């Protein structure tokens, strides 16, 4: 009944080429706009396809026939992210595939898993049958009924044009995907981590579910590595993540596997694996300090209930949802969402230290709930590589039936970073702010920024000591690595590094040295030398009650939107006006340049003057933002024209500087443009994805 009548459609204007199977359509629908969208109502046509609920505004922008197809328009919502469908408004009814509607809804509210809420208003002239039909169509389609139908469902739902498009889509080559050995090499070089190497010991995923390439100490041999996998849960051996500019490295690993037999050869394994032959190493036990995934899951579902609770009209509805598992099924453990919230807190406390904005975090948050992106749909690289063995993340959906994915027509799932598939240029522009302190030019530090303090540290501590930080205390348990315990009592006795847990003199001295160095802990200490921020200085979030907040823009947007009386105001930290102001600065500069060149009352006053000012401004910007600007070779020729020189010349200098293989920072001019960004030729409009040859 539903699929037969209107098989395909060309969504007017928005999606010129995508042929999607339209199940239902209703014209003269109004969509309620959120405060971010400018409030008010927008009228247009509502479509329901196998894949999404599309809303096409009546007077939307004229379509560009050459434009790339997109997965979701700004007003669309993927069926997969719908959590429930409620018809209203005078009586509200949760619409399920099996329920019946005893009234004609005037309003349709879609509650999403990502805590958005979409409100649609039907016109009274629309026949009742049509309104009821589209309501039920959405209610029936949004949940894949058969288990294991996610991918086949998604693939069947996508139009052929979209599939073709996705198959030909190429990845952003400017981004480090950390998939190949070269990617890791590049990162090692960026961080200046010289004593580490990329190992391909796991390149066939035989050793563990780690990625193909892992970074391990330079000195460790692959044969040694192979033996070490057994000592760790799921074979997740210690591997390198990042190197601090001052030279310490960050590693991650799973907990030790205690119940296996350890050979004598293993005894110095930790030295090998941790790469700490020359310094000491601290193992931080996260499980003791941090909430478990189950705790996080519980807290998240409580938060959802609380935030959505205010828009569910009856408390019983909430409990009903909780019981039926709707609220909990979305993500078994939203660890990634917790991470996003942590990033948001950092961003909120240090808004000017991030290039990304909370719009970006929101987009990422919402995309997690879409079962569309390879980024979030696989558990590890192995799964991403072999889609036939795909097991969805954390119980997103059930196992995929093997035959459906073997369909050769299925395009590869796009990564979430292909933002153009979901967000318009205008929305994507808001993902980053223009004026931001640029990251320090790497690899100037090369990880060799060792100070006297470090020398102290090295001289004073026994190299190779391994300490355990657990529950806020340092210990040096003799059997921290399990291979040291029991059987190897002889070694333990004679081993010079076998320290008792009570007495850790090396560590004490280290901490003393550290304390004496007076690490800036409060604003009193930060009034130090004038000039730029220390790029090595971490952003330390404040953790006390008064400093923690609720990510209102994320968790409360739906609840507020649904409450008819109030929508969301634009809060102080939202939508930095900086971009707008910066644009205005540029316009004024252009005007000034025009005037000065057209008038020329006095060649000295009119042409020299603005140029000089620009140059000065630009220069002092450098002083304020680039810590190492003096070190950078000045390849820029002296400015010659009135306007073009300022940011262009500068950005080219930063990108043409003799940097290593790292591709030029394409946003380079964005960082530094504070006083010279030309609004006209926006480098960001350059397509990120290049069509295949």
């Amino acid at each position: 009944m539903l699929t037969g009548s209107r098989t395909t459609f060309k969504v007017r204007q928005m999606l010129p080429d995508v042929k999607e199977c339209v199940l239902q359509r209703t014209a003269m629908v109004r969509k309620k706009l959120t405060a971010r969208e400018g409030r008010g109502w927008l009228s247009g046509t509502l479509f329901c396809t196998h894949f999404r609920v599309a809303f096409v505004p009546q007077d939307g922008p004229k379509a560009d026939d050459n434009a790339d197809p997109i997965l979701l328009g700004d007003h669309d919502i993927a069926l997969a992210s719908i959590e429930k469908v409620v018809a209203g408004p005078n009586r509200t009814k949760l619409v399920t595939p099996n329920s019946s509607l005893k009234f004609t809804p005037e309003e349709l509210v879609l509650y999403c898993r990502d805590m958005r809420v979409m409100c649609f208003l039907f016109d009274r002239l629309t026949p009742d049958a049509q309104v009821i039909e589209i309501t039920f169509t959405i209610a029936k389609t949004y949940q894949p009924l058969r288990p294991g139908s996610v991918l086949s469902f998604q693939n069947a739902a996508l139009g052929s044009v979209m599939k073709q498009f996705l198959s030909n889509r190429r990845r952003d080559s400017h981004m480090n995907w950390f998939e190949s050995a070269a990617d890791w090499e590049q990162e090692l070089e960026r961080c200046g981590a010289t004593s580490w190497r990329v190992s391909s010991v796991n390149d066939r995923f035989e050793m563990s579910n780690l990625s193909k390439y892992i970074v391990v100490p330079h000195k460790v041999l692959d044969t040694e590595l192979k033996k070490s996998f057994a000592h760790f849960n799921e074979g997740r051996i210690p591997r390198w993540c990042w190197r601090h500019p001052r030279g310490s490295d960050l590693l991650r690993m799973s907990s030790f596997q205690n119940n296996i037999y350890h050979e004598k050869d293993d005894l110095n394994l930790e030295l090998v694996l941790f790469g700490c032959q020359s310094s000491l190493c601290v193992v931080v036990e996260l499980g003791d300090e941090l909430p478990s995934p189950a705790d996080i899951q519980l807290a998240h579902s409580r938060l959802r209930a609380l935030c959505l609770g205010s828009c569910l009209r009856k408390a019983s509805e909430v409990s009903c949802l909780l019981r039926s598992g709707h609220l909990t099924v979305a993500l078994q453990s939203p660890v990634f969402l917790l991470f996003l919230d942590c990033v948001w807190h950092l961003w909120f406390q240090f808004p000017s230290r991030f290039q990304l904005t909370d719009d970006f975090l929101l987009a990422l948050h919402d995309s997690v709930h879409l079962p569309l992106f390879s980024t979030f749909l696989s558990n590890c690289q192995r799964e991403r590589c072999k889609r036939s063995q795909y097991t969805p993340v954390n119980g997103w959906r059930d196992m995929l039936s093997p035959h459906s994915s073997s369909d050769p027509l299925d395009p590869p799932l796009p990564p979430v970073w292909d933002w153009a598939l979901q967000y318009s240029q205008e929305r994507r522009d808001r993902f980053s702010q223009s004026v931001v302190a640029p990251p320090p030019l790497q690899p100037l530090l090369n990880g060799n920024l060792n100070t006297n303090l470090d020398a102290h540290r090295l001289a004073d501590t026994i190299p190779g000591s391994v300490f355990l930080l657990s529950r806020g205390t340092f210990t040096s348990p003799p059997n921290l690595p399990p291979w040291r315990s029991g059987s190897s009592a002889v070694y333990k006795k004679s081993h010079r590094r076998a320290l008792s847990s009570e007495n850790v003199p090396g560590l004490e001295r280290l901490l003393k040295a550290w304390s004496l160095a007076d690490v800036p802990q409060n604003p009193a200490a930060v009034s130090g030398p004038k000039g730029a921020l220390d790029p090595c200085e971490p952003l330390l979030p404040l953790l006390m009650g008064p400093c923690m907040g609720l990510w209102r823009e994320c968790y409360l947007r739906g609840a507020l939107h649904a409450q008819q009386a109030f929508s969301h105001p634009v809060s102080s930290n939202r939508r930095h006006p900086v971009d707008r102001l910066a644009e205005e600065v540029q316009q004024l500069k252009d005007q000034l340049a025009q005037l000065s060149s057209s008038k020329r009352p006095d060649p000295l006053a009119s042409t020299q003057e603005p140029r000089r000012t620009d140059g000065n401004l630009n220069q002092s910007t450098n002083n304020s933002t680039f810590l190492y600007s003096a070190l950078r070779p000045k390849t820029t020729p002296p400015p010659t024209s009135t306007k073009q020189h300022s940011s262009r010349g500068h950005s080219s200098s930063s990108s043409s500087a003799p940097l290593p293989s790292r591709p030029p920072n394409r946003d380079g001019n964005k960082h530094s443009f504070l006083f010279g960004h030309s609004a006209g030729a926006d480098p960001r409009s350059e397509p990120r994805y290049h069509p295949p040859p």
Partner: protein
Amino acid sequence: MFSAKPMKPTFRSYLPPPQVCLYSVIILEREIVVNEANFVRKCISTDSSQGDLWGRLICTNFKVSFIPQDPPPKQKSQLSHLLLGQHDISLTCLEQVVTVNDTRGKRKVLGSNKKLKFNPAELILYCKDLRVIRFCFDEAGPESAKKVCLAIAHYSHPADLNLLFGFEYQGLRYHHYKGDLVNGSTPRGGIQTPIFDCPSDWDREIKRTGASEWRVCSINQKYIISESLPEYIVVPVSLTDQDVKSYSLSFNDGRVPLWCWNHRNGSALVRMAGSTEPLNQRKTEQKIFTAITKSHPQRREVTVSDLDKALPNIQDIQSAFVKARQICTLDPFEESEERWLSSIENSRWLEYVRMFLKFSAEVVYSLDGKNVSVILLEEEDRDLNCVVSSLVQLMLDPHFRSLNGFQSLVQKEWVMAGHRFLDRCNHLKKNENKESPLFTLFLDCVWQMTNQYPAAFEFTEAYLTVLSDSMWIPFFSTFLFNSSKQCSQDFAKNKAIPPTEDHTVIFPPVWKWSQQFSSRDQTLFNNPMYVGKGAACVQNGEVKSFQRSKKAFSSTVRISSTSQRNGLKGEEDTLQRRGSLISGLRGDFSPVKDESPAERFFRDWFSHPADLQGVLIPLVLPSHVVLWKLFFLRWVLEACIPKGGPATVYHKVSQLVDEIDTLQSKLRQYKGASPHSTPVPSPSGPPPGQRRMYFKASSADEPPTSPNVLNSSFPFNPVGNLCRRGVQGTPISKFLNGAKTWLSTETLANDTF
């Protein structure tokens, strides 16, 4: 005229005989050092003595001053007060003076003329601006320590208002002959803010609001009918002076209903006190209501809002504030960490802020949505009415969201309307029951609105905070008296002036900010994001963005008349709807059943983009009324985000706006120049004195201000105030803090390195 007199306080280097080190203290004219103690330790942290300052503690008749021996380098971007140093506390600002006995840790709250039986080991000063300051006397002489504590306690409890230092200070500088009075009003001294002590200020306000059916009445000259009303009041034109006089008898303290403000649609906002004689009350009230109705162009009936029934009383507000203050400044954070948000919620302060905002929004609905005049009724008309009437005007009239407009609003609805600042601030520390932070509550409500609409107000939260601090400096007429009569008559005579001369003391209002801050520091008051008449350049940007949204959504044009606000404009043609013939388009937009007209008004308002130059209604959901962190937490070092917080955004925006200003002035110079004359564009734009922004765009001669010194307490500096524990709470830092304590107790010299 006092403008000729020297305005700057005298700076005198204070060099004590024994020390050779160079430090100075600001000593004002007529300020006398009463007592002092040497070798006093100012405690910075409770858990270790690291970072403590050594110096001299001084008590004068104006302030408690601490002069550190080795003062830490002064921060560049920090508000510096012209009358008070970084470690100074005005005596009026002291909330409690507590001494601690060394041996038993016994605490004693010191009042005036109290005896102290033990030698104090510590002195803790709890300040009204939420600072907590602790001094240790372990190296100071016990006698001098005791004396200075007693002196501080004594001088912070003046027996009489006359004894406040302000009378000494201003009495010297601001007295003048009565003959100097211009048109019966005090000279303004270059302040643009109207004071509302003369008929012309009221006339201008009537004209500005278009209240043609109202007039200035001078029946209360010499405070004949009421001691708490201003000398000039605004009444309906249909009432004669005699009517006003006779009606005044029926109201508390003779307070006839007082006009506050007129809406463009003709409805008026009036405030009224309760009655003294309930029997005749109805008759009198009816007559006045009729007169107000007559002054309404549509002759609408008036609505009376009883504030006493709907809002918390002043004691409730006081106890909520005390609790909130306790949670923010005193309670050790570790113990309340997990439940911190709950405890703030339980203080009910935020709830009261919400209630006042909500109540005011409902009055806005009556005036703007229902087009009826509203009478705010409160028993005394001197407390809650001040909050509500000024909030209502702030929401309705964009003029009051400018800096001068806001100051005139406070002047009109608080100072002239007779808010008992003297009692509510408890300057004399005599009657705790009368103390209530209503003005602070009002400022918090205003802050909530600035937080929700950051571009709608000309002033910053730093301004609001500085204004609240000014309450505790006894120099300003604004916050010192219970009524304008008290200010201009009762206390105009003073012992500082020889009785033979016909002089009166004139206290300047707080609005003369040059008394407290340099003109550069005053630029901290300017909100760079403000979209208003004064800020044309920023407006350009705003207008642009509005245009864009207009194009995209075609429904965002807000028309002040509500009847035309009907959702999508121009859509009636394309969408013929069932029922639209009878109910009109707006009727179709009521998806919520059983909606009251007020709810519909708000829903309608919130479904449109807010016009920052129009009516502004705050969100009053519990989730959107938040703690005013700058006010409550600025002195709490533990909660201070170094190199972060909203100040960093303010810094960037200010720089951009300054650059826009500079470029625009250059552009004007180019455009204004005739083709033959040589334009002389100055590279730095307008001279520094005229620049509006605190942070300047960087230029060659002026290196950019490093954001290094910015933190979330900016422009205040929490350093030097009591800190209760180490700053970071990560597992490693917990350990390291332990290590630090241990380091301080153990001599490091013995260690072999």
